């Protein structure tokens, strides 16, 4: 199981600019449920609160109102039931790829042969068995993020939380990793919540897209594409892809035409 629910979640920041304190309402009573095994994309313009929502769900930030539950249990701080994939992988530079995956597992209490075997298994899952002894700076951007995904998956969380996981990668690597993520999802059945600013990515990967604007949930849209998605290149050519992409695009740009 891995059902994540946002109940009236709010988050206010105090921001000091030039000696004046501004209050920023990063999240304004957001409500939605991510079902078990579902992939949900959070999309919206920068500053819309999508990353904050993810961080609150992870427990890295505390909400100032409402609560997030995972399978009915309220989130207080981080936990092994959630795995985080960071925007720039954030591998520990002094550890090899394998040791980076082992780090998370050690924190969960694994030791000895089980620790190593599990880490190796998940590195194999992301196709990095041959590079397990390389340090992060000896890995390409795409490989780093694969290690980041393996590290989060290895602890066998109920939910995978990803903060713009492919945003820093070049287009080709990004496409390869998107396909891989879908493949991993098909094999593990994890609930995945990911933040993106890439419309195509949201439509290609997600079952539902949560469009956020100004700290609020603006719209929730179901992607009418079958699962498994198959070859993503072909998916891009489908009518449903184009239509959903256009709908989300319009959602993001609504009112703007009035303003300008």
């Amino acid at each position, binding site marked *: 199981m891995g059902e994540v629910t946002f109940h009236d979640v709010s988050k206010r920041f105090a921001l000091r600019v030039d000696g004046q304190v501004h209050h920023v309402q990063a999240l304004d009573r957001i409500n939605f449920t991510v079902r078990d095994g579902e992939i949900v994309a959070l999309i919206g313009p920068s500053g819309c609160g999508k990353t904050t929502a993810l961080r609150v769900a*992870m*427990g*890295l930030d505390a909400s100032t109102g409402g609560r997030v539950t995972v399978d009915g249990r309220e989130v207080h*701080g*981080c*936990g*092994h039931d*959630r*795995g*985080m994939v*960071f925007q*720039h992988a*954030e591998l*520990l*530079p*002094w550890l090899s790829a394998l040791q980076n995956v082992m*780090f*998370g597992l050690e*924190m*969960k209490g694994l030791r000895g042969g089980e620790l190593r075997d599990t880490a190796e298994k998940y590195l194999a899952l992301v196709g990095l068995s041959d590079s397990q002894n390389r*340090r992060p*700076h*000896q890995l390409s951007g795409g490989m780093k993020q694969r290690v980041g995904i393996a590290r989060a998956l290895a*602890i066998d969380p109920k939910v995978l939380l990803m903060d713009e996981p492919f945003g820093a990668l070049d287009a080709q690597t990004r496409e390869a990793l998107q396909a891989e993520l879908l493949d991993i999802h098909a094999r593990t059945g994890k609930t995945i919540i990911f933040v993106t600013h890439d419309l195509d990515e949201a439509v290609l990967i997600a079952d539902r897209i949560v469009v956020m604007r100004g700290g609020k949930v603006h719209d929730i849209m179901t992607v009418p594409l079958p699962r498994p998605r198959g070859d993503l290149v072909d998916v891009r050519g489908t009518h449903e892809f184009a239509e959903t992409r256009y709908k989300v695009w319009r959602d993001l740009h609504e009112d703007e035409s009035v303003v300008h």
Partner: protein
Amino acid sequence: MRKENMMAEIADKNIAAPEVETAERRPLPRWVITTVSVGCLVGFWEIFGRDINPVFGSYPSAIAVAFWELLKAGTLWKALLESLQPFVVGYLLAIVIGIPLGLVIGRFRTAEAALGIYVTAGYAMPLVALVPLLILWLGLGFKVKVSVIFLMALFPICINTWLGVIAVPKTLIEVGKSFVAPNHVILRRIVLPATLPYIMAGVRLAVGRAVVAMVIAEFFTTISGLGAVIINSANNFDTATMFVPIILLMLMAIGLNSLIGYVERKVAPWQAEIAGRERE
């Protein structure tokens, strides 16, 4: 005309196979440059130093003779050994206490608020002025020497570690948090390795201060060791002999520095691999 040549050259390069480019001049090795630099300095000193009254100055060959005399008499070894004992103890103590102290001050805001101010102030402490007081507390012997060296070496190590902890990227700590690592694990397995380059810089800076502290201690407490050799020969207007321990100490500092560099490459090999050594 010149411009045309250049254009032709550029055009040639574009057409020519890339391996022509690799035939560039190899830069001089660093040790060659250092040797030439030291050689020039010693040479000039030798030439112009001879014209100076031997009470007011000396020159390399005279210092070398004095070095040999001291070595033959056994004075130098005895003095060096005498000096090194409090040096090693005080310096190691500063490392063992300074690093954890810096880590804790950097990581916990309560510790920073409570202790940071003493560390900042302690770095600027006029230690020479406090030596008489330390003598009253600890006597004239080994203990007071160790404490002078310790106090001088502690603060650069502690402050550098502290600054290093502050510079650790927040996201790396969040990695630890996201895997529910307890605070002491985050400190030991994330903050400490991430801070190592800063710590090593502090440990290097402390070498110089510890050497100075050692001589100060030998001047103002029981006159002993290399400090005694300096004072005694200065009192006898034997300037050449006076220079022997001074140069020996500077050589020792250089040696220690490269030893620390070696240790750094051993304990933090990733740092040397990441940090760009590309320099002009």
